[in-house]
């Protein structure tokens, strides 16, 4: 138990910052919500079902498009819930009054437009039940949060692999290009070998799997060169970055590939598990796997040891080269998966995908508390770091911060995170 607590401080700092930022954006985006159309119908249906009125219900709405949808949705939901609907009026105030007076129904539900009609005041039952406006942060809506999670998925998947690389004291700059290569190779294979728009699920999985493996192979090769010739990974992966980008352009002849079946977007846009996007589920899976790898396996311990003191690790009998190559291979696989997810989200494969992603990914890892010097860090921090950057960007979008200013802010956050890390290590 004590172990759990003593581990807290490393991630609590950054998690606290994430919470603070969320609270700040929630306050900043507080606004009055006036439900219209389908959401209003849904919300009101729930309220009526809770009431369970003993008498029939009369639905009243104006002639606008939102009102018509409101009435349709509401009627359908109430009927589905077994509530007796005495009638539905979609029309002018005069139509509504006629039906209202004739039917003698007292339980009336109206759209926001219809609720403002004058004749309700003369009725002995008072105004009808209508959708209430309420104050709620635009940041904190389910739609927006899912949107953030969806956007963060690709970056976070890449950052998981990058965490391993940085812990060993290396760096891999090629991941942004690998995304493009993976997306292009995957979609190209679907177009050429799996029947383009007519591709089957198995065919698509095989093609995307091949694309991921290509990236894993490239990562492995980077790792082999780095360890075999004892050269800095920075410069080797810089070269690989250019080569992979060029290869993506060459393979696609510089164009985006769109000839994909509708089912291709399942991974990127589907949400099959309690409404959680599939990309987010994949991301979570990868994080669980890498977290277990780092904390529960000998390989994970060797990753830390190699980054902490390569000579001490070697003298302790650790196969340093094998560990580093494997880490680069895993990182390549993660980049490949990220590319497939991005292609699925955008239903296309383009050689321009993922430009500068490597910097964004490294920033997420470092903000998450992993040291560039190696030997320290974990994926939990990385996940929080990736979310922090995404949330800040999303919040700035919602509060209308211009895109130029957004870049300045994100840059400043990276600088601040590294300085914070430096202060932390110095105080040790």
């Amino acid at each position, binding site marked *: 138990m004590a*172990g759990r607590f003593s581990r807290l401080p490393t991630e609590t700092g950054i998690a606290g910052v994430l919470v603070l930022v969320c609270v700040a954006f929630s306050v900043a985006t507080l606004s009055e919500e006036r439900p219209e159309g389908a959401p209003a119908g849904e919300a009101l249906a729930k309220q009526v079902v809770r009431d369970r009125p003993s008498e029939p219900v009369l639905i009243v709405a104006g002639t606008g498009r939102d009102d018509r949808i409101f009435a349709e949705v509401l009627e359908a939901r109430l009927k589905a819930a077994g509530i007796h609907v005495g009638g539905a009026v979609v029309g002018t105030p005069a139509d509504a009054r006629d039906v209202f007076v004739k039917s003698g129904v007292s339980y009336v539900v109206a759209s926001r437009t219809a609720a403002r009609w004058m004749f309700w005041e003369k009725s002995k039952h008072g105004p009808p039940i209508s959708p209430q406006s309420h104050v709620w942060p635009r940041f904190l809506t389910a739609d927006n949060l899912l949107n953030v999670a969806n956007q963060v998925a690709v970056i976070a998947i890449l950052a998981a692999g990058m965490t391993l690389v940085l812990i060993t004291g290396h760096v891999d700059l090629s991941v942004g290009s690998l995304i493009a290569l993976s997306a292009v190779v995957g979609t190209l294979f679907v177009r050429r070998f799996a029947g383009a728009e007519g591709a089957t699920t198995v065919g698509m999985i095989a093609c995307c799997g091949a694309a991921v493996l290509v990236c894993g192979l490239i990562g492995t090769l980077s790792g082999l060169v780095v360890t075999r010739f004892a050269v800095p990974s920075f410069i080797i992966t810089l070269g690989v970055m250019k080569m992979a980008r060029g290869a993506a352009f060459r393979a696609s002849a510089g164009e985006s590939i769109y000839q994909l079946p509708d089912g291709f977007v399942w991974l990127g846009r589907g949400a099959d598990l309690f409404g959680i996007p599939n990309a987010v589920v994949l991301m979570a899976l990868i994080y669980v796997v890498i977290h277990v790898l780092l904390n*529960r*396996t000998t390989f994970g311990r060797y990753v830390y*040891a190699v980054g*902490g003191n390569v000579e*001490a*690790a*070697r*003298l*302790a009998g650790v196969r340093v080269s094998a560990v580093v190559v494997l880490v680069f291979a895993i990182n390549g696989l993660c980049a490949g998966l990220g590319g497939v997810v991005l292609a699925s989200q955008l239903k296309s494969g383009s050689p321009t995908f993922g430009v500068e992603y490597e910097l964004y990914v490294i920033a997420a890892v470092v903000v998450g508390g992993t040291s560039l010097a190696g030997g320290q860090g974990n994926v939990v921090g990385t996940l929080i770091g990736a979310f922090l950057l995404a949330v800040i960007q999303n919040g700035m979008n919602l509060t209308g911060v211009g895109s130029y200013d957004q870049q300045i802010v994100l840059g400043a956050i990276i600088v601040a995170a590294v300085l914070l890390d430096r202060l932390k290590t110095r105080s040790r």
Partner: protein
Amino acid sequence: MTPPLLEMAGVEKSYPGVHALRGVSLTLTGGEVLAVVGENGAGKSTLIKVLAGAVTPDAGRVTVAGLPVPSGVPARAKAAGVAVIYQEFSLVPALTAAENVYLGREPGRYGWLHRRAERTGAAEWFRTLGVPVDPGAPVRTLSTAQQQIVEIAKALAADARILVLDEPTAPLTPPEVDRLFVVIRGLTARGVGVIYISHRLDEVFRIADRVMVLRDGAHVSTSPVAGVTRAELIERMVGRTLDQEFPTRSPRIGEPGIVVTGLRRGDVVHDVSFHVRRGEILALTGLVGSGRTETARLLFGADRRDGGTIALDGKVLTISSPRDAVRAGIALLTEDRKNQGLILAHTVRENFALPNLSRWARFGLLDRGRERSAFAAAANRFRIKAADPRARAGTLSGGNQQKLVLAKWLERNCEVVVFDEPTRGIDVGAKYEIYQLMQELADRGKAVLMISSELPEVLGLADRVLVMHAGRITGEVTDVRQATQEQLLRLAMG
């Protein structure tokens, strides 16, 4: 009366667990060579560092020509005219000889280099020193002896009046040594005072006017070289009293465990052959740089060997990496614990676990319960005093760090344990515990190889002693009880 060129008085310095200097004083007049001798760890390098301003002493003062020099400020020492030439040169390899001579004090104005003045100035210094060096040649293309001359020229160009030479002849050939001595005589003729630090007593008698002996951080004697013999110097360096206690035991020595034949690597290890029997503690001693540590690293596969075989219990081992050695049952406790033995930023328990992880894992998945209980047992057995298994290894004292390294290796049931300077930087109490653990290992039938510069330790602990000099084994002492430190030192000096 003019004050002496240099005076150091009552210099004291303590590091945690080590009293490096105990009130050392010296005077140096212009135009003389003062030799400073002593065993490894006698305090010579600390004394130089205090003089150079690299180390702040706990007490004592340094005055140059009567003026006090503030301690702990390298720039002030330099300005006072002190120049130290360490064994590791401080030259920029890619810059030319001339550029190095004037590094940091380039001739010129407003940041604009006067390259011709730089070159002619440097050439002038090389001519004065009487050694041909091309001022325009990059330093990395020069020989070691030429680089040394560049260092000396650099010191002189900075108006040095006190020149400290730390083991200057170690990397030189005999003709180069002769030429260096001519240079030194030329410097003293110009009124420069030279402090000459060396292990090579014959050189001390050739070049020095006076010789000062340090032992365990204390000043033993300073006398003109004419009034002292080589034997007397060695006697003073070693001292008569053994102030350390060693646990006693009656060794039960068995069959040869590890047998090394014809080990060699470049020009650091030449054809080294030896064996360590099971139950035996074999000491390998010699001066720093004699090839002892290099031999151990070859045995462990940490460096690639050019030739030689290693056999354990009659079976030849293929060792090409530390991993091979570890799997064969060999453990190496390196001299440099902080950089090679431990990962200081990681926890005590993680360090303990590193070479043992595979034994506590199934299909790569770690059994952390076994890791915890193994560590708890080992910490208890080795009396590792860590408040918390999750404390960083860097927070432990030297003695506890060494016990931690020992524990991590012994968890593996090694058959051969190599200790490189096992008690360096460790306080007396912890030393005794380490000695006990080493003897316990031998008594359990392991082959124990100990590399040590501390002669009392070698004599007090080993069952047999090998002495190395210049990459070769130059002597063997089987009757350790009858051996003396003088005997070992003589063998070590070749």
